[in-house]
C-alpha cells in the first residue's frame, strides 16, 4: 500500500511540474514616455503618468505627431490594427496608431545600405518636393528600418540629419525583429539578411490614408512617381 502512495505522489509531482511548461508569452514591455504639455522643463520626459512639478498640469503621453483625429473607428484593413511598438528617431515610443490623422507615405530601408536605399530616399524626396506646402502639413513620411539591431534611435537621427530630413514631416522608426517582419508582410515587402550588415529588400513606397488604409504602392527604383503623387494628393485634405 505504501508503495502505491509513493507511486501516486511521484505521478502527481511529474504532472505538476510539467504543466508549468506551456503558455509562456514573451512580453515586449516598453513604456510610453510622458511630458508636461506646457514644456516647463524643456522637454523632460517621465516614465509614469503624473503631474508637472512646476505648473502642476497633468503629464501627457508623448507622441511626436499631432493627431488630427478624424474618427475613432479604424477599419479592418487599417495598419493601425497592428499593436507593435516602435522607437522614433527622437527616442519616443509609439504605436502605428499614434500616426493616425495624416496621410502616411511609408518605405522600408536600412541606414547602412549603400545601393538602393539612397535612391529610394531620393525618390521620396522627389515626391515630397512636388507636394504643395498646404498639403504637406497633413502628410507624414515614414521610414521603417528593416535592420532594428543596427538602426537605433540615435543612428536614425544621425541619418535624418545627414539627409536633411530632420523636419517635422519626416519620421524614422526602429521596431523589434518580429514587429518589422509583421509590418513588412502588411506592405508585402520582402527582405533577407544576406550578411550581418547587408540586406536584400524590395523597393516599395506605400501610401496610406489618414485612417491607415493602403491606397497605393509604387514598386521599383527611379520609376515615374506621377501615380504616387496623384494618390497622395487624392487622399490628403
Amino acid at each position: 500500500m505504501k508503495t502505491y502512495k509513493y507511486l501516486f505522489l511521484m505521478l502527481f509531482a511529474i504532472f505538476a511540474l510539467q504543466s508549468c511548461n506551456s503558455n509562456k508569452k514573451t512580453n515586449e514591455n516598453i513604456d510610453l514616455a510622458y511630458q508636461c504639455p506646457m514644456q516647463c522643463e524643456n522637454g523632460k520626459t517621465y516614465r509614469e503618468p503624473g503631474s508637472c512639478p512646476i505648473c502642476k498640469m497633468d503629464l501627457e503621453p508623448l507622441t511626436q505627431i499631432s493627431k488630427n483625429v478624424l474618427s475613432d473607428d479604424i477599419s479592418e484593413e487599417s495598419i493601425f490594427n497592428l499593436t507593435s511598438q516602435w522607437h522614433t528617431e527622437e527616442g519616443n515610443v509609439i504605436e502605428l496608431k499614434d500616426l493616425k490623422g495624416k496621410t502616411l507615405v511609408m518605405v522600408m530601408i536600412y541606414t547602412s545600405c549603400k545601393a538602393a536605399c539612397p535612391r529610394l530616399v531620393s525618390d521620396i524626396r522627389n515626391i515630397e518636393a512636388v507636394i504643395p506646402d498646404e498639403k504637406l502639413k497633413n502628410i507624414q513620411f515614414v521610414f521603417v528600418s528593416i535592420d532594428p539591431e543596427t538602426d537605433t534611435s540615435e543612428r536614425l537621427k544621425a541619418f535624418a540629419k545627414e539627409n536633411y530630413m530632420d523636419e517635422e514631416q519626416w519620421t524614422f522608426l526602429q521596431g523589434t525583429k518580429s514587429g518589422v517582419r509583421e509590418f513588412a508582410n502588411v506592405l508585402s515587402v520582402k527582405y533577407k539578411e544576406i550578411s550581418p550588415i547587408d540586406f536584400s529588400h524590395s523597393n516599395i513606397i506605400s501610401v496610406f490614408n489618414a485612417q491607415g488604409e493602403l491606397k497605393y504602392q509604387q514598386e521599383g527604383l527611379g520609376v515615374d512617381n506621377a501615380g504616387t503623387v496623384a494618390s497622395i494628393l487624392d487622399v490628403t485634405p
Partner: protein
Amino acid sequence: MKNQVFMLVFTLLVFQPLLFAQSKGMVSIKGSRYIPLYGRDSTVVEVNNFEIDIYPVTNADYVNFVKKYPRWQKSKVIKLFADASYLSNWKSDLELKDSEKPDSPVTYISWFAAKDYCECQGKRLPTVDEWEYVAMSDETTKDARNKASYNQQILAWYEAPRSNENKIGQHQKNVWGVHDLHGLVWEWTLDFNSVLITGESRKDVDKDSNLFCGSAALNATDLMNYAAFMRYAIRGSLKAKYSMKNLGFRCVKDINDKINENL
C-alpha cells in the same frame, strides 16, 4: 505485484528527465550548418538547436484555439490579417464542414493567424532555413537530398491531388521523428517573405535589381533540387494574408528560451 510496482517507479524515475527536456508533441533538433537551396552570401547557413512539432497543426487543434481566442474566428478575423478564403472549409465560427476530418492538417490559414497561434502556445513559426533543415532528411539520413528516392517521393506527392484532406501521421516519420513535412500540405514559415524571387522567370533571370536591392547575391545552389525550387517559388509568391487550401503550418520552439531573437 510489489516487484511490478517497483519496476514502474524505477522506469518513471529513469525517464523523468526526458519528460522535462522535451515539450509535449515536439522533438528536439540538433542544429548544424548546411547549404540550403537559397542561402546567404556565404551560401552556408547555421541553424541552432530547437524543438519542432511532430505533426502539423490539425483542424481539431485549431478549433480549440479559436474557442480560446475569438479574434481568430472566421467571422471576427479582420481583413488586414486574412483574406476572404480564411477557414472557408468551416461551416461556422467553431465548426468544420461535415466533410472535413478533425485530424487533417488545418489549412485556409493566413500567416498572421499561424504566427499568433504559435505565439499563444509560447512557440513561434520555423524559419525557412530551419524548416528546410528538418525537411531534407528521410527515414534514415539527416541529409537525403542527393538520394534519388528522396526526390522521387516528394515529387510523387506534389502530383497527388487533394492530399490536404488526408489525416496526419500516415507517412513514415523522418530520422528526427517528425511526420508529414512532405506529403500533406505546404507549411508557413516565419520569414517566407525573405525569398526574393518574383515568380516571373524573365525578371528572376535578370535579377531584378530595380525591385530588389542586392538580389544578385542570391543564387540557387543546387539546380537539381526541383522539389525545393517549387517550395521556394511558392514562398516567393505568397502574401501574409493569403489563406490557401493546401497551406498549413507547425510550430517550433527555441531550446534556450530566446523566443523572437532567433529570426
